């Protein structure tokens, strides 16, 4: 592929001297509120909606009813009421041969939706129904159908794998000659962007999970890595070094053009999008350890943008990821000489250490209630509401770089 034809550099939008600093008082507030502990901005506990599972008729109806009950309990979004208990919502339906039709009603008996699910497996259909129920009632995406991508060396080479939120249904998705690393899932989970060494050099490729085709996004000299899909899936942020410096570029996947949005003298890495698609947070090491920076992404050619350091109070910060609501940033830092996953409200607030002792590379669940990370090569899911964590995948080689579907 002709890299020069592929990549037209539109503009270097951030000039020297535009590194603004966050407000002094804001930083002082951040400074005084440091020291761990839970963030003050945590959501207050709300009463869980009560849902009752009604009759499911048909050959696989009883099994569907039982599985749906477990899925709804596992989601921890509802209180699942008994048959004779009052509830805010009622779900009922039919299931034959693994197919499922589900109907959700509110307490007054008003239909909220009725949908049919015809995937090959009963479990798959019920996971989809569960996520639809969660989204309809809470407005947040469910996790039953969400996926986590990660890197594992279980095959002898680092390759990309995908699993569900419980660590089940693990599939290898790349079979590259040398290694495939740094995966990022598109917002609709249909594509993975990743760094491939198939040519012997790190380049970014896209893999369509539905039809299986692959294409290169960058094949520029130097190195390309650290790709992240924009919230609308039309752009990809990544690090490229062909201009003689590693910089953060934003590529338009429709036009195959790219623009540089950083102004680094060091080593930038790990860009992550704000859910509004207008800002990126990334890590950059200017010689004294990586720190976090925020840059506004220009919406039009030639538009200037602000680039500023976002202070966390820690000297070593990498792998930042914005929460789905844009109110927090999770990142890897180092405490007592060990990797630590922490979150901090954006733009201001106290840092909350989520997991120390070697935890790294955090990624938020789509509903923002959980974080996945790796700890000593195992994949963990951490419930931010209860503080409980559990290993969802172990003994699967050395796992790294997990990324939850956004």
């Amino acid at each position: 592929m002709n890299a020069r034809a592929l990549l037209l550099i539109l503009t270097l939008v951030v000039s020297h001297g535009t590194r603004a600093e966050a407000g002094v008082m804001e930083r002082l507030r951040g400074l005084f509120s440091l020291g761990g502990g839970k963030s003050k901005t945590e959501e207050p506990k709300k009463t869980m909606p009560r849902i009752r599972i009604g009759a499911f008729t048909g050959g696989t109806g009883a099994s569907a009813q039982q599985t749906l009950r477990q899925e709804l309990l596992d989601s921890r979004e509802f209180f699942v009421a008994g048959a004779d208990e009052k509830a805010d919502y009622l779900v009922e339906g039919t299931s034959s041969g693994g197919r499922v039709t589900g109907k959700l009603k509110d307490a007054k008996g008003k239909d909220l939706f009725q949908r049919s699910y015809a995937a090959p497996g009963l479990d798959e259909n019920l996971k989809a129904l569960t996520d639809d129920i969660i989204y309809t009632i809470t407005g947040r995406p469910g996790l039953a159908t969400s996926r986590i991508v990660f890197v594992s060396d279980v095959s002898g080479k680092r390759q990309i794998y995908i699993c569900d939120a419980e660590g089940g249904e693990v599939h290898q998705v790349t079979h590259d000659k040398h290694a495939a690393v740094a995966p990022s899932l598109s917002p609709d989970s249909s594509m993975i962007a990743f760094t491939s060494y198939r040519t012997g050099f790190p380049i970014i490729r896209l893999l369509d999970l539905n039809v299986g085709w692959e294409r290169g996004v960058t094949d520029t000299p130097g190195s390309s890595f650290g790709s992240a899909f924009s919230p609308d899936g039309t752009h990809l942020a990544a690090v490229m070094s062909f201009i003689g410096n590693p910089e953060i570029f934003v590529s338009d996947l429709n036009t195959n053009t790219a623009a540089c949005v950083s102004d680094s003298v060091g080593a930038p890495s790990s860009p992550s999008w704000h859910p509004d698609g207008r800002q990126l947070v990334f890590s950059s090491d200017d010689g004294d350890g990586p720190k976090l920076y925020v840059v506004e992404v220009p919406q039009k050619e030639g538009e200037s943008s602000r680039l500023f350091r976002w202070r966390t109070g820690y000297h070593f910060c990498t792998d930042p990821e914005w929460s789905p609501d844009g109110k927090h940033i999770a990142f890897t830092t180092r405490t007592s000489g060990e990797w630590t996953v922490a979150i901090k409200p954006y733009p201001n607030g106290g840092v909350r250490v989520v997991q120390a002792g070697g935890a790294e590379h955090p990624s938020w669940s789509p509903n923002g209630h959980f974080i996945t990370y790796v700890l000593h090569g195992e994949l963990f899911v951490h419930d931010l509401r209860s503080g409980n964590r559990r290993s969802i995948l172990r003994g699967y080689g050395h796992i790294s770089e997990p990324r939850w579907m956004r």
Partner: protein
Amino acid sequence: MNAALPMMKRPAAILSSALVGCLLLASCSSIPMPSFLHNPASEAVVYALGPREGFTSPLNGSLKPACPALVFENANFQLTSAHQQALNSLAQEMGKNKKARLLVAGYTAPNLPSDHARSLSERRSLAVRQRLIELGLEAAGVQTVGFGNDFSPSGPSSDVVVIYRQN
């Protein structure tokens, strides 16, 4: 001056002095640096990488290092005097062969976060390339790659930059 203050007001005076001090310190990074303090190295011309066609990766074949590996310590990317010395010798040797081409490959220790490691290794490679160009090598003949800790080079340290000769 503080000694003249009544004892009751001293904590307030200390607090306000500390606050003023914090404000001044916090605003330091926004004050433009005087031109005479600028590091001339940061204003050096940066040479973009030319086409990579014809360059072979160490992953795809056995390549011969052009000089001993340059070892980096403490996750740094700045060149040390030992690096400069090795690169001077290499540049002198390469001066005899104008058509020679080099691939500068960076690696890092396995314990760094993966994406940071990739960027750091590429940054190190680019610093070495920049120095080689300043020493007279043609920009088009020197390519870089950063392997981070995705691959380990042979040798006692993995925190290195290896300069491979290209055929």
